[in-house]
C-alpha cells in the first residue's frame, strides 16, 4: 500500500546541511500496525512526514497504492491527505476554538459530506472512544489523553486507509497512553485501517505487528544491541 524507494531527506539550515534520512527502503502492507522506533533525532518524524505526504523527499520515490506520489503538487497531496489519510500528532493538535465534535468532523466538512452524515459519524466515533459526554467540550477542557483520543476520532472521520501517529503517547501518563494505543489497535482490528506510529516507549512496542528501527537516518528491521 505504501512503498518508498531510496528515500533521502536533507534539511538545509542556512549553510549547514542536515541529513535526516539516507537511502531508506520500506514497504507497508494494508492492515499493518507498524511501529517506527529510534533515538531522538534519528529521523522518525521525518520518515512519517514523507509517508504522510506532509513533506517531500530530497531524493527517492514514494508510492501510495501503486501511484508515485513523490512529485505531486501540494494541492493534490492535500486532497489525498484529507480523504485517505489520518494524522495524530504529539500534542496540541486540536483547534482550540472548536469543540471536540467539531474538531472531529472538520475534515469531513472539508471533504464535502453532509452535516447529517458527518455529525452522526463524529458522535459515533467519539462514543466508541469513550468520549460521548465530552463531545461539546473545548480542547482546553479535556485531559491530554482525551484530546489525543479526539485527535484519533478526527483522523478516522473520513474513513482513511492509513493513520499516521507521531508519538501519540509521549505526553501522557501510562494509563492514558494505554487508552490511546488501545484506540489505535481497535481501529486497526475493527476497520483494518493501516496504522503507522512512532514511539519511544517500549510499552507501545507490544501493540505493533511489526517494528522498524531508525539509526541516524538508516533503517533496520532489528533492534541494535
Amino acid at each position, binding site marked *: 500500500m505504501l512503498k518508498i524507494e531510496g528515500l533521502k531527506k536533507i534539511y538545509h539550515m542556512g549553510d549547514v546541511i542536515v541529513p535526516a534520512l539516507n537511502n531508506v527502503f520500506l514497504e507497508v502492507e494494508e492492515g499493518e500496525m507498524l511501529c517506527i522506533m529510534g533515538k531522538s533525532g534519528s529521523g522518525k518524524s521525518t520518515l512519517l*512526514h514523507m509517508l*504522510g505526504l*506532509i*513533506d517531500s523527499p530530497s531524493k527517492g520515490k514514494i508510492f501510495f497504492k501503486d501511484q508515485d506520489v513523490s512529485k505531486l503538487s501540494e*494541492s493534490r497531496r*492535500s*486532497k489525498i*491527505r*484529507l*480523504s485517505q*489519510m*489520518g*494524522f495524530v*500528532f504529539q500534542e*496540541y*493538535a486540536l*483547534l*482550540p*476554538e*472548536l469543540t471536540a465534535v*467539531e474538531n472531529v468532523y*472538520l*475534515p469531513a*466538512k*472539508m*471533504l*464535502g459530506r453532509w452535516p447529517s452524515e458527518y455529525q452522526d459519524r463524529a458522535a459515533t466515533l467519539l462514543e466508541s472512544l469513550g468520549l460521548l459526554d465530552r463531545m461539546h467540550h*473545548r480542547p482546553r477542557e479535556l485531559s491530554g489523553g482525551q484530546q489525543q483520543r479526539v485527535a484519533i476520532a*478526527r*483522523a478516522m472521520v473520513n474513513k482513511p486507509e492509513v493513520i499516521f501517529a507521531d508519538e501519540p503517547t509521549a505526553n501522557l501518563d501510562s494509563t492514558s497512553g494505554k487508552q490511546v494505543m488501545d484506540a489505535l489497535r481497535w481501529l486497526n482490528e475493527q476497520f483494518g485501517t493501516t496504522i503507522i506510529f512512532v514511539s519511544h516507549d517500549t510499552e507501545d512496542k507490544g501493540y505493533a505487528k511489526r517494528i522498524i528501527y531508525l539509526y541516524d537516518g538508516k533503517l533496520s528491521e532489528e533492534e541494535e544491541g
Partner: protein
Amino acid sequence: MRTIQVALFIASRSIFRGNFWLGVMTILMMVLVYLNLLFAPSLLQGVIFQMNSKLRETLVADLTVESSTPGELIPSSGKLVDEIAAINGVDSVTQSRTISAQLQLASERGTAEVSGIDVESFKDVYSIPKYMIEGSFLTPGDKDQIVLGAQIAGAGKAKLELYSDSLKNAHAGDVVTVKFANGVTKKYTVKGIYQTEFVQADLKTLISSSEFTQVSPTSVDKANAINVKLKPGANQDKIDQEILGLNPNIKTRSWQERAGFVQSYTESIQVINKILRAVALVVGFLTIFIITYVDVVNKKRQIGIERAIGISPPTIILAYELRALFYTFIGAIIGAILFVTVVVPLEARYPFHFPLGNVFLDVDYAFMLRNVFILLLVSVASATLPAWRAVYGKIVEAIWG
C-alpha cells in the same frame, strides 16, 4: 463552495469563541476608523455647503441677469422682472442698481457699493434682512435712510476682517455722508446694520429704489442686475434658456459660475479631505493587518495542523478574510448608527463656528455606504497579506515552529 462553508465555519468559531475582548477592541477600532472616514468629509462638505448657500442667499441668488454689453444697464427692467417672475419654477425675482460711493462718518472714510433695491422682492430673494444686528431693514419708499453691511459700518467690532477700512464706529441712528461716484453728495441716517458673516455681502450698503432714482435719475426703470431665485428642484438650465429668450441683449450667469472665488477654498478643502481619508484608511488597514498578523503568528502551529489534515490554504485564508469582514462590517454599522444618532445631533447642538457661520455635518447616505465598502475592501486586503504568508509556508516548519 466547500471552501466557503468550511471557512465560514472556522471564522465564525474563531469570532465567537476566540478572545472576546480582542474582538470588542477590534470592532471599536473599526468604529473609530469609520467615524474618522466620515467626520472630516462631512464637516468639510458642510463648510462647502455653507459657503455656497451663503453666497446664494446674500449675494447672487440662483441666476444673475445682466446686460450683454459690459457697463450698460438693462433697459425696461421692470417689465423683464415681471416676465421672468412668470416663468415656471421661478420663486422670486429682484432688480438692483449699483453705484460706488465714499462714505464718511466723522473722520473715518470707507468705500462701498451702494445698491438701490426693490425692498419687497429683495426680501423674497435674499435673506440679508434676517441678519440685522442693529436697527431694522429698509421698507419700500424709505427716504434718506441707508442700511450698512457690518464690514463697512465697523459697528465697533474691531474683530471684523476689514475693520480698519470701515467707518469703525457707525451705529444705527448715526448720520453718514455719502459721496456718490456721479458727483451727488447726501447725508443718510443709518437705519440698520446687518452681518451675514460673508465678507463680500457685508461690504455692501443698501438704499431703497425710490431713493436711488433721486440720486441717479437716469436709472429709472433700468437695472444693473436682476437676480432670480428658483424653486427647490427647478430645472436651472431650462429656466436659464427661457430667460435668455426674453431679450436678446441680456446674458445670465449661474451661481455656480459666480462661485469662482469660493471654488478655490473648496479645492483646498478637498485636498485636506483626501489626506484625512487616506490616513483613516491606513489606520484601518494597519488595525486589521496587525490583528491578523498576531493571530497568524500565534496560530502558526495550528495552521500547520489544519493544512496537514487537508484543510486547503484558500480555506484558511478565506476564514481570516471573513473574520476581518465581520469585524469591519460590525464596526462600520455601529459607526454609522453612532454618526447619525449621536455625532450629528451633538454637533448640531454645539456647532463648529467657521468664518461663514455655524457649520453642520452633512449626512449623505450614499457616501456613508460607499465608505463601508471601501473599508471592507481595505480590511480584506489587510487580512489576506499575513494569512497568505502564513499559509503558503512549509507545513513541517509550521508544525514544528
